[in-house]
């Protein structure tokens, strides 16, 4: 009796650890599977006065992983570093050139009072000896990892000219257990897969997460009531609101760029899926499409003037667009592929990421606007759910490998791919959050 009671308590503790506490060991490990042919060689020197307590953040290692993970850089192995400078004036450019680096990144950690920490850093171009960038990121002492991503963002932007998206977050769904007893979780993690936290869990399916444009909320579909319903949940507090639980399908939520409206899919009692727009303040619903076909998976253009969505009104699923108003006229926008579905609009509005199909299976494709031509970007057999990084440079998507769901990224030119390996069971439906500010 005593023993089983203890075991029960331990199991409860384990359940709490797994469910509600931060997932200390949960990781999405990044493997670069294909990179650019000529990545920029950099050296990231360990930062001075980095805390050395157990579990402390190794700032240089975080920056190194971000830059390597982008596929645009190749960082020098720490053990091979020819010196350990901590400020730009200590960097002997010739020596770093000899060890075949273009850039050296050095830095130090400076306490600001008891709660704040400043990460000071220098980016030195050793080809011309110039200090390219000197900066400081000040964060709460508990936020060193986030501060490190922000340093990586600034370095990435300085060298590539493209805003970095390392200090952003992703949300995704994980599933474990075997049918019919499965556990579905909605998770939020840093863009590198670290710091995964459970936002919601259920014994019934959870799907289609979507970020609000301010990054404060997630909309998602939950079947916890044995029917589909759409919720909007505050990421920070877990507080949530049911915004649609009509008869039949409530699906595919997508926030308008101003965050005030939600495009979604309803079927009503007749089972005919159409696109609607929900005003989040008044909960007034506007029907946008009215067609006997399946119309679903709406996504807003960045200016909020158009919805792109999937419809099989022409036979196989293709992408159509319509204005987000009652009685809108739908126009087909994807051509040149037998199958195109679940569009996501690029941040610049010039292309759509979609799921398409070729002889090898379901793959991530890019639809150029306005020509509608489809280019295939990924190489899996069951790839789906593409989502743009807020800088538009990379897409995250889900695939399957040896029966397991996995997440991967691909640069929008198809040049750089990487896999994020997870120990959280089947992972799927990644959605990249907005910039933090």
């Amino acid at each position, binding site marked *: 009796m005593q023993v089983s009671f203890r075991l029960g308590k331990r199991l409860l503790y384990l359940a709490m650890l797994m469910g509600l506490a931060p997932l200390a060991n949960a990781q999405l490990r990044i493997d670069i599977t294909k990179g650019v042919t000529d990545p920029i060689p950099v050296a990231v020197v360990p930062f001075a006065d980095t805390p050395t307590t157990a579990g402390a953040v190794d700032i240089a290692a975080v920056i190194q992983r971000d830059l390597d993970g982008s596929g645009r850089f190749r960082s020098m192995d720490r053990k091979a570093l020819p010196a350990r400078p901590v400020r730009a004036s200590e960097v002997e450019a010739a020596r770093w050139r000899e060890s075949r680096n273009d850039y050296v990144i050095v830095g130090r950690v400076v306490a600001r009072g008891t709660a704040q920490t400043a990460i000071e850093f220098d980016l030195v171009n050793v080809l011309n000896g110039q200090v390219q960038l000197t900066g400081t990121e000040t964060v709460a002492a508990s936020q060193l990892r986030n501060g490190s991503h922000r340093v990586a963002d600034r370095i990435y932007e300085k060298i590539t000219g493209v805003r970095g998206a390392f200090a952003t977050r992703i949300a995704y769904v994980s599933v474990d257990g075997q049918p019919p007893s499965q556990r579905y979780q909605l998770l939020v993690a840093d863009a590198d897969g670290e710091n995964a936290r459970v936002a919601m869990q*259920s014994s*019934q399916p959870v799907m289609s997460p979507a970020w609000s444009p301010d990054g404060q909320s997630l909309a998602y579909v939950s*079947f916890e009531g044995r029917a589909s319903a759409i919720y909007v949940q505050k990421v920070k507090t877990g507080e949530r609101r049911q915004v649609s639980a009509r008869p039949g399908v409530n699906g595919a939520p997508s926030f308008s760029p101003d965050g005030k409206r939600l495009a979604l899919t309803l079927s009503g009692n007749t089972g005919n899926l159409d696109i609607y727009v929900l005003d989040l303040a008044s909960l007034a619903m506007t029907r946008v499409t009215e067609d006997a076909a399946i119309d679903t998976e709406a996504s807003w253009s960045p200016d909020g003037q158009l919805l792109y969505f*999937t419809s099989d009104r022409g036979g196989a699923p293709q992408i159509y667009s319509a204005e987000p108003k009652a009685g809108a006229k739908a126009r087909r926008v994807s051509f040149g592929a037998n199958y195109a579905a679940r569009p996501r609009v690029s941040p610049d509005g010039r292309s759509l990421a979609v799921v398409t199909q070729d002889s090898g299976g379901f793959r991530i494709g890019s639809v150029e606007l306005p020509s509608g031509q489809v280019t295939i970007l990924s190489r899996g057999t069951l790839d*789906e*759910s593409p989502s743009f990084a807020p800088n538009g440079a990379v897409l995250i998507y889900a695939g399957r490998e040896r029966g397991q769901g996995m997440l991967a990224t691909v640069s929008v030119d198809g040049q750089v791919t990487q896999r994020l390996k997870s120990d959280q069971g089947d992972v799927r439906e990644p959605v990249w959050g907005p910039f933090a500010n």
Partner: protein
Amino acid sequence: MNPTLPRIFATLVSVMLLASGCGTKNTHPDDAANAGTAVGADGTDAQTAGVATVDAGQGSSGRGALGPDGPLGSQRIIYFNYDSSDIRSEYAAVVAAHGKFLASNASVRVRLEGHSDERGTREYNIGLGERRAQTVRRALALQGVQESQISTVSYGEERPAAVGSDENAYSKNRRVEIVYIN
């Protein structure tokens, strides 16, 4: 004797078993324990974040008398061809049996749960599962079943019956489950 009569009789017996037994307790224990919990997921402050727990859903989960392990076996599951929502001829008798029972028992309600295989996008598959559930709903209505007796839900590819990325699994996943809810 009409060969479908024993089947109809079996359906009736099973439905009665369900109605008198499992049907009175709507919540499956597995679901009551963990239907849905929302928690704060901010990286900075998760320890003190709010937790919202929601009520479990209602309805038998399909493991009652009419479930795969029940006396009727798979007779409450209708299987479909790829990308199709047409009821195959071999399932016409199954649907008819349920239809006749429901038509003569107006207080009994069913939920039609539509499913798809994993090919295609998830929300599109929700649409496909809904189409399948609607096909079965219309077939039941033709037997005289009242609209108020039937509800539909589509799970798309989210609740597979079989795991795997081959036709064997796919054929088991493209289905509508007829779930008696009282």
